[in-house]
């Protein structure tokens, strides 16, 4: 963690922690996923002065909550957009796309004001704001976001109709 000399003084530690939170929270890496929130600082090591700039680098060990979807993981998400190619869902900051090949064959796309996928008997419907349980089959990580491909074509996947969670 690099700190400008103007922050030195009595509040060094607080400033360092504040800057860490500002810089690290919300970032995303391939290995660890999204850093959602820092929960604790384990220790702050000795600072090292950088030649030429006056900046000081401190090694900081910290604990944080991260969000990282795994291939093969099953999770719940909220549908955000439905079109004839499939639908997009969101699990926190992570975007998930479920292609129409990965939606059960008995579900048909219906266009209109509220595009949706419906079974032939109309008992199950996927539309915007539906809650679905899906399985991640692929992930792609950018510098700022994680994008996943999901499927609902498996046992115990699909719309969550448990009224307790609706």
């Amino acid at each position, binding site marked *: 963690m690099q700190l400008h000399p103007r922050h030195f003084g009595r509040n060094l530690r607080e400033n360092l922690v504040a800057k860490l939170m500002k810089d690290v*929270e*919300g970032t*995303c890496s391939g*290995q*660890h996923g*999204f*850093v*959602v*929130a820092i*929960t604790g600082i384990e220790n702050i090591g000795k600072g090292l002065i950088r030649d030429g700039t006056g900046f000081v680098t401190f090694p900081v060990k910290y604990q944080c*909550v991260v*969000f*990282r979807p*795994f*291939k*093969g*993981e*099953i*999770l*719940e998400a*909220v549908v955000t957009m439905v079109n004839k190619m499939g639908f997009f869902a*969101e*699990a*926190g*900051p992570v975007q998930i796309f479920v292609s129409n090949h990965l939606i059960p064959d008995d579900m048909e796309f219906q266009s209109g004001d509220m595009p949706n996928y419906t079974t032939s008997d109309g008992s199950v419907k996927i539309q915007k704001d539906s*809650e679905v*349980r899906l399985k*991640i089959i692929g*992930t792609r990580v950018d510098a700022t976001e994680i994008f996943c491909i999901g499927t609902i074509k*498996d*046992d*115990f996947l699909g719309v969550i109709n448990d009224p307790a*969670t609706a």
Partner: protein
Amino acid sequence: MLRADEEDASELKIGDDFLKAKCLMNSEVAILLEHRCDQMKHMSGDSTTQLPQVLEKSLQYVKRFSRFTNQGSVKQVREVLSRYQLAEFELAVIGNLCPENVDEAKSVVPSLKTKGRGHDDEAIERLLNDLLMVKKFE
């Protein structure tokens, strides 16, 4: 670090870092983030401050999908589940999804079926019953 194509949560291949890390359930994260947001609002002095987007979105998500809302029962769930020699990751998935029967549990957490881990159907059944109890008495 594992290469992307070697990763498979159904066989519990999630990389060393994450196997060792503590996996939290949505309900636990909700409590944690809620606390953190309060803290941030408190620090900035007014309640209208914009929260960072990732934090905001994550909070909304975990709140929407929390099975347990009061702190006591969240704690209890972890206690109950940790009696069954589950990996951290499995514990979190079961706690998040609350499967209703043995088949569902085995389907959402396929690593339970791995041989030699002592999770026969009976044990899973007991686990789910315990979980149901906590939910009932919430």
